[in-house]
Every structure is written in structure tokens, then in C-alpha cells.
């Protein structure tokens, strides 16, 4: 099979006319490649659909470029620039550690010693490590002193080492916080080394060590700092690292656990005692500046460390008491940073070409830089041209769910998780992108994955090649397009039907708020806008309340709390997003106790529902079930005959099967499904105009947040809430929401050259929603008091089709 020799990304998802966008390309092998800007129209290669379609754009950067290899230096760590105080003769190193993978399989992608605190490189310097055997190890120049005791993973240990240059005395401590009945006693290791520390001109590192200084190596240019290559990336937590310039007694080491304690001159100077303060080189407090990329040193020299690749902060420390769950209220109990060897916040590649988007003549659409070689290599770097606020060019806008794209970026679930096949209900199919990523863990995973050490991934950056945001890519969950290529089904339909539209991304609406959307008559979502920022939901609410119209084209939206990390604002909008999987919801991993609050903004993570913001309140429906084998279709309900909404079904007979065809699962109702629930935020006047009730397979299961007791009977063949409901409701000032309630829905739009009943339904809705001014007022009789739980089950309009004597589809 073709290996992926071309990969790339851009500095922006969203670019305005007149602005520049830079492209970064790794071309590993071919001498040159061609680049051209294309408009993306359809990304699905299924032979039963229109096939892949793009349209070349006449761009001045279209041409041939020299290829060069660029690599991602993944793995998080901290570094402090070399400074005189680090150049000690004697020392004490100490910290708390909670390692997650102290001993790795020999074939593990980064099987090696792991750095804890080090100013060590190539047999010069000093540092504390975990060696390849999983034991604590002190390195002084070429010397290695180890306890020979394997460190228990997922447990706190206090570790320390002292070296007295005058006597050569070395002492190494490994003190587990929890000692079980049958654990052997771990005595300190003592030895004598007649050695003077040789100091290399390298930074002091936390959770890594310096492998080499390579200022002239082009592949080291994407490391940070550029030209310095780090190795020994540690997996696990570190808390309270300290360096002192004296071999301290065990009692003084104990005092130094308190850190530098600065602040009151008349009491302590800068240490637990005046005497100890004079020995401090650095005493980092990771509980300070949790929302930054700086590890603050509270010692006398202020040797702050820069954190690279966004390790997890706001992590419970060795001293977490279990009484505070929000780091903002107890930063001293959140003095741990969790490092992972596959963290990546920015690939930091050099730009290969830059396009200035013309001010005129390039519509607001889906685009990509299409890269090809003569040997058949191909890569797409997607981006969106988005008008400036106030310069909208259409009455329709498509909200591109880029936060959701980032959440799913480079996912590995098919080859990591033992359970993956149980939710797809078939053997997963891996595409070449999955194969490449399974070998190139440095490209980072998705928020659905666990890190290579098994810890959940809660951070995703867009400044890296994201191979899942690509056309011609079927996702293992669907055996069909998912997210980006699935949203292109909608784009193909808009293009085919001849609509004029703008596009904007989740970033744009998050940063611009209501201003980004208020000039459009109708907003259209993607097929699966699951991951959302708070400002985005605020803007959508304000929009629909002021008469805006929302067409929600999919399912499982408005589900997870996301925050863009403010530490990356200087690099552009929405560079890094954070999402913690907390107490409920569909979760491929679960955050640990006490780690529910985001490090980036301090807000509580998890489902919006558990922040009191119900999914169903945004567009009238919310997720109720999911299953990934095959799709089904919708049937109209009596609600669809209500004159408030019957216009949507013009040209569609009552008993037609709605969407029993499609390019995702074979039907319009599939993958993930939303229902109306007035108890969970659907407005009481919501009309459920069509439903797929009773038709789903046993692969479809009720969402876990909807039940509290494990039970049988929650699948599509047995549970009445495993269904999708197409729904409509009016909002104030002539606004409205139409929800199509299925991720597979858009996959039916292109069927039969867009000539089908799903296409007709969506067209009817869009044509009505796009008109200027408020929508026609609903009939006066529809204005009435309605309860949430309370309704009149005897009223004819609330009776079932069967009870009303209406024919059921055969």
C-alpha cells in the first residue's frame, strides 16, 4: 500500500479574503510535489454517489515545490535555559512522581529511559531518571546509580538524590507514598563517586533530557527550542521538583518538600528556613499559573521553565485531599503536571508556501491545498475562506464544526481499544491514514483516544497534520464518511441545488459571538457538531431568540464542553482546544476524580447537560442513542400535518419512507440519533414531525446519561427511546429551528443526483428559512399554555397514528 509521504497543515482553519494563509508540508521522499488550491465539493468515493469532486482555483501559488522532510517532536516536557545556578558542584534533586509507564515493552515506540529532572546530556551533567528497567536512576556524567527497584506505576513516590562533591557521597531515595503489606522495604542507596560534574551547555529539563544540540540539523528546527533535540520523554505526573546546590540531609529534604515559600522577608527569606534558602537553585510550583505554559520557579533565581507540547495541568497532586475538586480553590493541591510522550501542541514546521487570498473573486467555501506527486502521492490541507464580520455575501451560512474536527483529529480507536469492534458491530476498516498514524504516534491522537501510556487525551491542537480531516476517508465508525467528508455531502447538495452560501468555523463564532451570525437569515450546521464552546452556544441562543433560523443537520450536538486554551491566542484563534470527559456521557476514557476542571479556563468540563445546559435546548432535540452498523429511515408522524410545519412536506406523501437510501449506513436515520424530550430542554411546543422509532438494530444503544441502572432492553430492537426524531419549533421574533436528528442524514442528500425525499424536505425548509424578515406567524390557535411533563394525552393531536386510525406505512 502507499505510505503517506506527503503530510501537511496550515496556520489557519479560517482565512478572510485579503489575508494570508501559510502551508507547512512534509514531503518525505519525493524530490518535489505540486500544490494547487481547490474548492472541495464532495469527498466521498462511494460508487453509489457522485464520487470525489473538487474544482481547481486559479491561485498564484499553484505550482511545483521542492520536497523536504519535516518531523513532529512530540512529547511534553519543561525546560529552563542554562543558567549559572544550575551549574552546581554538589546537589540535591527531589520531586514527587506518579509514573504511568515506568517500564515499557521493548517494541514500545519510545522504549527508553525517561527523564525526571535533569541537566544532563551525553554523559555530562546530573539528573534523576527512570531507567529502561523501570527503576529510579541517578546520572552524574557517565555514572549510573540505581535502586534496582521497579517503580510501581499509577502510584505516588517521593524520589530524591544527593551528591556531595567534597566527599563524593551519593545517596538515592525512593519512598513510595503507599506501602502495601507485602512490599519490600526500599532502603536508600549509598555510594561514593570520585567525580566532578561536567556541565554541558544544555537547558535544565523536566520530564525529558537533552539528547543532542543540533543547530544545523533541519529536522531539529521543529523542536523547541529549535536545534535542541530532547529524548527520554516521561509518561506520568511530576509534583514539586526542587534543585538545591548542597547535599541535604534527609530532614532538610523533608523541609524542602514545602518549596521556596517566598513572600515574607522577616520570616523565612526564600526557603523553609534561612539556611535552606541559601541552597535553593530552583523550586518549581506547578500549582501556580495552571492556565499558562510556564512552570513557575519560586526560588531566588526565578528560573521559570517553559512547558512544551501542552502537558496536562490542573492535575491532582500527591497531597490532594479529596475535598476540593476545583483547582482554582486549592492550587496547592494541584501541584502536579501530567506529561505524555505523544503530547503535541504545534508541529512547528517551516512554511513551504503562502497564499494571499484575493479580496475579490474567491467565494466563502470549503477549500484545500491539494498536494500531489508524479508517483501518485496525494494530500489535502483543508481550510475555509470566511468573510469578515459585516462583509457577509449570502443569506445562508454553514457553520463548520471545526472543534468537533479537532476532537476527532487523528483518532486511533480502531487499533487501540479492545471495545471498538463492539460498537461498530463489524470488523473495523483501517484506511491508509490510520495505518500511518498507528506508526507515527508523534502526530498526536484525538480526544477519543488514550495517550500511549493509557491516560485520556483532553487536548487537541490544529497546528499539526490532521489526517482525519480529509476527503476520500471513510471512518471506521461508519464505514463511510464521518465529520469532514460527511459534511461535504451537505456541501455537494448546496452546490448542486444552486444555493449561495457563506461558511464560517466554530472558531469564528466563538471569538466573534453574535456578530458573526446575526446578518444571516439561516444557519446550517454540519452532521455532527458534538463539541462546542460556551460562547458558541450563547451566540446560537441569541441568534435564534432574535428571529434567526437554525437548521441542525445531524445529531449528537451541543454535547461536550470545550475551551480554547488562552496560552495559544498569540498563535491564532482556536489553536488548542481542551475537553475533559467527566462523570457521564459517551466516554472512551474518563477523567480521574478531582480532574474535571479545565486547565485552560478553569471551567468545569464534561457534558453541557451537567452544566445545566441541556442539549435539547439548542435546536429542540438531543442525543438519545448511537449505533454504528447500518442506518434506517424516518416515517412522518401526525405532528407533520400541523399547519405550523406541513409546508415542509410539500411534495412528500404521508406514507413515504423518508431516506431509506443513503451513503452513510444505507439510510438517513443512523449512527447517532437525537430525540425530542421536553423534560431535557426541548421547548414544549416542539413538533416531532418524523421518527425512526422501532427500526434500529441491536447495535444501537440508549445513551448512558439517560439511565441510572444497568439493564437489558436498551437497544434499538427493544427500547422506545432508541430512535431519531425530526423536529421543528418556532423561536421568538419569527425565528425557528429544524432538527434532522441523525448523523447519517446528510448522507442521503446526494442520493440519485439529489433527487429524493430527503433532499426535497431540506429544500422546503431552507427555502422557507432563507427569506428576509420574520417567518409567517403560526396559526393563532397554536399559542397556548403547555406543560413539560404535563400534557393532555386524550387530545386527538397527542394520540398516536394508530389510535387516530391513520394508515401505517407497510
Amino acid at each position, binding site marked *: 500500500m502507499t505510505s503517506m509521504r506527503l503530510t501537511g497543515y496550515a496556520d489557519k482553519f479560517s482565512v478572510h479574503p485579503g489575508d494570508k494563509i501559510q502551508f507547512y508540508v512534509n514531503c518525505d521522499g519525493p524530490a518535489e510535489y505540486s500544490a494547487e488550491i481547490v474548492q472541495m465539493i464532495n469527498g466521498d468515493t462511494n460508487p453509489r454517489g457522485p464520487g470525489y469532486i473538487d474544482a481547481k482555483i486559479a491561485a498564484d501559488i499553484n505550482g511545483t515545490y521542492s520536497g523536504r522532510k519535516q518531523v513532529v517532536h512530540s512529547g511534553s516536557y519543561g525546560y529552563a535555559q542554562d543558567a549559572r545556578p544550575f551549574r552546581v558542584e554538589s546537589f540535591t534533586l527531589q520531586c514527587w512522581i506518579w509514573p504511568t509507564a515506568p517500564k515499557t515493552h521493548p*517494541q514500545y515506540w519510545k522504549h527508553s529511559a525517561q527523564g525526571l529532572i535533569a541537566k544532563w546530556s551525553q554523559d555530562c551533567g546530573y539528573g534523576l531518571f527512570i531507567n529502561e528497567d523501570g527503576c529510579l536512576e541517578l546520572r552524574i556524567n557517565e555514572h549510573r546509580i540505581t535502586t534496582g527497584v521497579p517503580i510501581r506505576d499509577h502510584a505516588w513516590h517521593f524520589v530524591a538524590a544527593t551528591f556531595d562533591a567534597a566527599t563524593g557521597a551519593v545517596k538515592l531515595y525512593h519512598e513510595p507514598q503507599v506501602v502495601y503489606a507485602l512490599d519490600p522495604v526500599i532502603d536508600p542507596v549509598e555510594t561514593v563517586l570520585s567525580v566532578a560534574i561536567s556541565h554541558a551547555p544544555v537547558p535544565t529539563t523536566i520530564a525529558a533530557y537533552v539528547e543532542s544540540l543540533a543547530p544545523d540539523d533541519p529536522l531539529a528546527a521543529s523542536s523547541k527550542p529549535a536545534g535542541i533535540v530532547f529524548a527520554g520523554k516521561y509518561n506520568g505526573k511530576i509534583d514539586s521538583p526542587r534543585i538545591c546546590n548542597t547535599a541535604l540531609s534527609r530532614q532538610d529534604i523533608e523541609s524542602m518538600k514545602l518549596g521556596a515559600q517566598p513572600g515574607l522577608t522577616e520570616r523565612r527569606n526564600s526557603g523553609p528556613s534561612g539556611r535552606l534558602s541559601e541552597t535553593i537553585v530552583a523550586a518549581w510550583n506547578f500549582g501556580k499559573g495552571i492556565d499558562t505554559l510556564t512552570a513557575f520557579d519560586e526560588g531566588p533565581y526565578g528560573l521559570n521553565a517553559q512547558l512544551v507540547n501542552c502537558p496536562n495541568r490542573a492535575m491532582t497532586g500527591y497531597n490532594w485531599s479529596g475535598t476540593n475538586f476545583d483547582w482554582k480553590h486549592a492550587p496547592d493541591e494541584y501541584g502536579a503536571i501530567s506529561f505524555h510522550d505523544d503530547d503535541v501542541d504545534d508541529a512547528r514546521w517551516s512554511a513551504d508556501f503562502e497564499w494571499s487570498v484575493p479580496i475579490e473573486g474567491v467565494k466563502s467555501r470549503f477549500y484545500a491545498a491539494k498536494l500531489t506527486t508524479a508517483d501518485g502521492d496525494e494530500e489535502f490541507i483543508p481550510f475555509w475562506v470566511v468573510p469578515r464580520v459585516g462583509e457577509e455575501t449570502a443569506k445562508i451560512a454553514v457553520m463548520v464544526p471545526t472543534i468537533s474536527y479537532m476532537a476527532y483529529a487523528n483518532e486511533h480507536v480502531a*487499533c487501540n481499544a479492545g471495545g471498538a469492534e463492539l460498537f461498530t*458491530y463489524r470488523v473495523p476498516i*483501517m484506511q491508509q491514514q490510520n495505518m500511518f498514524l498507528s506508526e507515527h504516534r508523534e502526530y498526536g491522537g484525538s480526544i477519543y483516544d488514550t495517550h500511549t501510556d493509557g491516560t485520556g487525551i483532553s487536548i487537541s491542537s490544529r497546528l499539526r497534520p490532521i489526517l482525519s480531516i480529509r476527503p476520500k476517508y471513510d471512518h471506521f465508525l461508519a464505514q463511510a464518511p464521518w465529520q469532514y467528508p460527511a459534511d461535504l455531502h451537505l456541501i455537494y447538495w448546496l452546490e448542486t441545488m444552486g444555493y449561495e452560501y457563506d461558511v464560517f468555523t466554530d472558531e469564528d463564532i466563538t471569538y466573534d459571538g453574535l456578530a458573526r451570525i446575526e446578518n444571516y437569515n439561516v444557519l446550517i450546521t454540519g452532521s455532527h457538531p458534538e463539541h462546542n464552546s460556551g460562547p458558541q452556544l450563547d451566540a446560537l441562543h441569541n441568534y435564534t431568540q432574535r428571529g434567526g433560523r437554525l437548521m441542525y443537520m445531524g445529531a449528537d450536538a451541543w454535547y461536550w464542553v470545550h475551551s480554547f486554551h488562552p496560552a495559544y491566542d498569540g498563535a491564532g484563534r482556536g489553536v488548542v482546544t481542551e475537553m475533559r470527559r467527566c462523570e457521564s456521557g459517551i466516554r472512551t476514557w474518563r477523567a480521574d476524580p478531582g480532574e474535571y476542571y479545565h486547565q485552560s479556563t478553569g471551567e468545569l468540563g464534561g457534558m453541557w447537560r451537567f452544566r445545566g445546559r441541556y442539549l435539547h435546548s439548542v435546536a429542540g432535540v438531543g442525543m438519545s442513542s448511537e449505533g454504528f452498523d447500518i442506518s*434506517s429511515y424516518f416515517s412522518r408522524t401526525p405532528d407533520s400535518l400541523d399547519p405550523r410545519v406541513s409546508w415542509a412536506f410539500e411534495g412528500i406523501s404521508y406514507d413515504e419512507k423518508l431516506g431509506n437510501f443513503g451513503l452513510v449506513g444505507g439510510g438517513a436515520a443512523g449512527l447517532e440519533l437525537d430525540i425530542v424530550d421536553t423534560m431535557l430542554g426541548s421547548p414544549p411546543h416542539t413538533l416531532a414531525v418524523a421518527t425512526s422509532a422501532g427500526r434500529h438494530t441491536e447495535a444501537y444503544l440508549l445513551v448512558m446519561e439517560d439511565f441510572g441502572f444497568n439493564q437489558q432492553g436498551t437497544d434499538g430492537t427493544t427500547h422506545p427511546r432508541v430512535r431519531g426524531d425530526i423536529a421543528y419549533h418556532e423561536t421568538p421574533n419569527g425565528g425557528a429551528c429544524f432538527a434532522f436528528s441523525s448523523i447519517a442524514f446528510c448522507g442521503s442528500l446526494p442520493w440519485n443526483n439529489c433527487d429524493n425525499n430527503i433532499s426535497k424536505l431540506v429544500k422546503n425548509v431552507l427555502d422557507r428559512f432563507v427569506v428576509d424578515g420574520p417567518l409567517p406567524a403560526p396559526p393563532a390557535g397554536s399559542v397556548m399554555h403547555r406543560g413539560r411533563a404535563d400534557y393532555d394525552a386524550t387530545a386527538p393531536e397527542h394520540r398516536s397514528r394508530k389510535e387516530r386510525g391513520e394508515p401505517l406505512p407497510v
Partner: protein
Amino acid sequence: MEPIPKKGTPERQRLIDEHRRCVDSMKGVAGFSVLECRTPGDTTEVGGGIYIDPTLRRVLLRMRGERPRGKLVVICTKIEKEWRIGRLSGIRGVPPTFATDEIYTSEQEIQHAIFLMRLDELSESYGFPEDFDEGWKRRDDNWPAT
């Protein structure tokens, strides 16, 4: 736990035949389930397969819940044209390898080929005390749950 029907038994052949029917009927569907489409390639009406054969259903659930190490997977080698059977390494950073030399030209057909391989490969005592090992005491991604 559902035992895997032994080789050469009528029960095993029954599972194979039912699986075969489902696979054939799913050709053309942009998705897959071990169910039979009344009209081939059309999911409007499905039945058979795991709905009518509880043994087939349980055997498939067991197969699907196998740990990643050595687990069979489909690898698409030419988009919409060619697929091959791969085996997961179970080690992060070590990619799947091809398990056979066969090239399949249907993404559904390969599901049946993997079913047959798994019938032969799966331990009869999986999930029973005979198979107990230290891993049973440790929850991780390798268990059939996410």
C-alpha cells in the same frame, strides 16, 4: 460464555452459512451488520443473522471483544477497490501487519473471511477460569469496553 462450536460440527456450519447470507446481502451498503437485507444492498428491511441465531450473535460478540494484541482487522489498501486482512500489534506505535496475502475486492466479503479465521483461532476456553491470568485483575484499554 458462549463456547465456539467445534470444527466440523453442523452448528459451526450453520453459523457460517448464516453469516455468508448476511455478507452477500450487505454488498453495496455503506455500512455493515451481520443481518440480511431483504433486498440486497438496501437496509429498508433487515432480519436473519444475529436476530435469528443467538449462538451466532454471542460468538460474534466474543470475537469482537478480543484484546487488541493479534486481533484481526481490515486494512483498505486501495480506496473502494482493495482490502486486506491485518493483525493489530497491541503495542502503541507498532502498526498492524498483514495477516494473509489475499487481496479482497469487496469490503463486505472480507468480513466473512475474518469470521472464518476467527472461528479457527479463538480459544474455546476464553472467559472461563481455565484462561485466568494476571491481566484479569487490571482494567485497561485491552478489555472489551471503552
